[in-house]
């Protein structure tokens, strides 16, 4: 009996997806690199003492090239670049993940309402989203940061405001084709409340596209955060952030190019790993490839 059971044991859907993902070597590389960054972010304090290495200035040791003592060298204030990059991972990943999560939440609620109730509610909501998206997103975030003031929380708010209209559209576009179908009517006839219909029957279809979109979005957000910090409208010094580090490196480009190379490489690797993973997830989640 157990022999038959083990032979026909039903494979879970998630297990299936994971199996497909494992076959994609590029995606696996992305996953490994991402894990390294994530672990660095979580264990940053273990890898490099915050106060001593990241913040404290040490003028005697400024602008040292990479060595065994300072893996990536020191910056213009004598701070260890490797330590700053490790702690910078914490900043970038936190902002990326938080922004995406909140955007999914807000976009999910608003997008569901727009798609589900349709009619004038849909029109109003989408017009507002259109208006918000007509403003170039970088400028919108810039203006918000300027109004709210510098700092990580305000940056988060600013970027989230610029990001959630996109998610509203995605969720709405997933809900729209499903809403007219008969099983929704049937559920209503049974007396199921609206919220339950949306949550249990409709939204599960959206999980796939949302996950794929989100990995790419976090990559874009990491780059965007770095860009904003680069022009001085993001994370403020002395907090370590890869973009801000690049801004400080400009003066010393000629003599200490490693100050430009390493933070930049961190951004590229983080974004690349997320993009690879997202691409692999998209292929793994595609039901057309089921064999």
């Amino acid at each position: 009996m157990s022999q038959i059971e083990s032979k026909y044991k039903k494979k879970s859907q998630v297990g299936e997806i994971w199996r497909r993902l494992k076959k994609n070597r590029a995606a696996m590389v992305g996953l490994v690199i991402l894990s390294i960054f994530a672990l660095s972010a979580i264990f940053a304090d273990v890898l490099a003492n915050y106060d001593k290495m990241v913040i404290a200035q040490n003028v005697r040791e400024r602008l040292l090239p990479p060595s065994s003592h300072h893996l990536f060298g020191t910056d213009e204030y004598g701070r260890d670049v490797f330590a700053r990059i490790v702690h910078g991972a914490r900043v970038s990943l936190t902002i990326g993940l938080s922004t995406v999560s909140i955007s999914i939440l807000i976009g999910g609620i608003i997008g569901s309402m727009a798609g589900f109730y349709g009619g004038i509610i849909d029109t109003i909501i989408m017009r507002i989203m259109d208006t918000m998206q007509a403003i170039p997103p970088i400028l919108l975030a810039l203006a918000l940061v300027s109004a709210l003031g510098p700092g990580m929380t305000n940056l988060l708010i600013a970027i989230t405001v610029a990001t959630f209209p996109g998610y509203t559209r995605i969720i709405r576009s997933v809900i729209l084709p499903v809403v007219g179908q008969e099983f929704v009517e049937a559920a209503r006839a049974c007396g199921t409340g609206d919220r339950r219909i949306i949550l249990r029957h409709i939204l599960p279809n959206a999980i796939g596209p949302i996950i794929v979109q989100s990995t790419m979005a976090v990559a874009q957000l990491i780059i965007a955060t770095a860009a904003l910090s680069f022009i001085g409208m993001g994370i403020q010094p002395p907090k370590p952030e890869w973009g801000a580090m690049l801004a400080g490196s400009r003066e010393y480009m000629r003599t200490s190019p490693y100050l430009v190379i390493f933070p930049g490489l961190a951004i590229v690797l983080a974004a690349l790993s997320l993009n690879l993973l997202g691409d692999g997830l998209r292929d793994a989640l595609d039901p057309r490839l089921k064999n």
Partner: protein
Amino acid sequence: MHKYILKRIILLIPIILGVSFIVFSIMSFTPGDPGRLILGQTAKQEAVDSLNNELGYNKPFLVRYVNYVAKAATGDFGNSYRTGNPVFKEIFTRFPTTMTIALLAVITGVVLGIPLGILSAVKQYSTVDFISTVAAMLMASIPGFWLGLMMIILFSLKLGWLPSNGVGSFAHFIMPTIILSIPFAAQLLRMTRTTMLETIRQDYIRTARAKGATERTVIWKHALKNALLPVITVAGMELGALLGGTVVAEAVFSIPGIGTLILTAIRMKDIPQVMATVIFLASLFCIIMMLVDILSSFIDPRIRARYVK
């Protein structure tokens, strides 16, 4: 068809109004006041206060907003708090530079991305495909401003081939264009590849081949036209996005364009300048999207049918 175009143009108005409201609200929350800004840090408080009163700064929010819209409707967008010049004079001084870079970037992206995308699709799983896909992935992960910095290190400092800042000659435009076009080219490459792959699998392609058409005709005449449609939409969106997004490229290469104009204006709470510039950019964006839609409907008769009821 003309009715549709007219409807789209009329729709612009509420969107622009909405944009103006959003930006005005955000700017109102920014600390600082125009009186202090215009007169400077050392001016007496009474002078600052009286100037603020004159400019109507102390009136409630809605009153100020309605006044702004009323004046703007007549064409008066005010003068920049920072320079005292009419806001649109500032915009039009810098607009050609930014527009040139944006256009060049889009064209470069198209020239780079689409042919490679087609090649990848046609020779799927070959070496070319693999390299292109990896390259596209990489290009989408590199932050533009970092690429700019690295290029300056290589091409300006070490090799001395290209100028590192300002504008003046064509050479000045090369590096900014490259860093702006690369993420776009990556996106186009992947999109072209995907749509081409889907298109090639369609039955009508098989029919064309069965009828004996050469592979070249099949690709160029049939597959390409269909694959190009979403590409045009994305190209239009990118042009619009770039108009505002050159901020970072301009920061890296010290280019006096619209991006720096807005950045300075936002930082200094130069409300008239910010309002006018953002409204200008948003309107441009909407117009570009409208043109893209119209172009799409010309290319794809199915879309045209939907709009010409």
